[in-house]
């Protein structure tokens, strides 16, 4: 079964607006990671948040983690057309040293 599930499945916003994407998971985790994918090719790592962290920032990205609710959110501030991509969360539950990816969120930023 899917460990990380993102929502919404698709999001369309205007350039300059903020984009918020959510990820929920089922089992306890060691860390949660967010990745971006352009044009159906290789994924690019964005940010990693560990289970003992609640919030992390990287440039225009802000990630939060609520282990009590088993959820994470990725906020992209002041979005740009170049942010148009698919975004995936991935969880590490430490049991087998591999990440489990969600199905992804398709973000479209209109210029």
């Amino acid at each position, binding site marked *: 079964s899917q460990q990380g599930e993102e929502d919404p499945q698709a999001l369309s916003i205007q350039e300059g607006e903020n984009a918020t994407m959510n990820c929920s998971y089922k089992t306890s985790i060691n860390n949660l990671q967010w990745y971006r994918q352009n044009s159906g090719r290789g*994924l690019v790592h964005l940010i990693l948040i560990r289970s003992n962290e609640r919030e992390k920032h990287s440039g225009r990205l802000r990630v939060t983690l609520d282990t009590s609710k088993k959820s994470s959110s990725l906020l992209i501030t002041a979005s740009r057309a170049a942010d148009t991509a698919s975004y995936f969360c991935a969880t590490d539950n430490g049991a087998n040293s591999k990440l489990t*990816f969600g199905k992804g969120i398709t973000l479209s930023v209109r210029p």
Partner: protein
Amino acid sequence: GAGVSQSPSNKVTEKGKDVELRCDPISGHTALYWYRQRLGQGLEFLIYFQGNSAPDKSGLPSDRFSAERTGESVSTLTIQRTQQEDSAVYLCASSLVGSRYEQYFGPGTRLTVT
């Protein structure tokens, strides 16, 4: 430095033929992963190599799929007797010492089975 490379970038094959996909990980990365991504879908884990440990093959969908890795270097994913449902992008990723670290992905091989 060089990232993860994969070859070929595109492969079109006839149903029933065997195909071999190659992945060159980042030097020094002991962990290597193969994923499959069907059109518009998420990543499906296939197999994981970690150093000299026995690979985790729990994601391989059938015995037509196999993978090898020579030490901590190149890996090949082989699909025998390809079927149309094997059409997908096959992604390889490498990382340091498993999932505590970020994974670096290659550009993928787009496989089309006709």
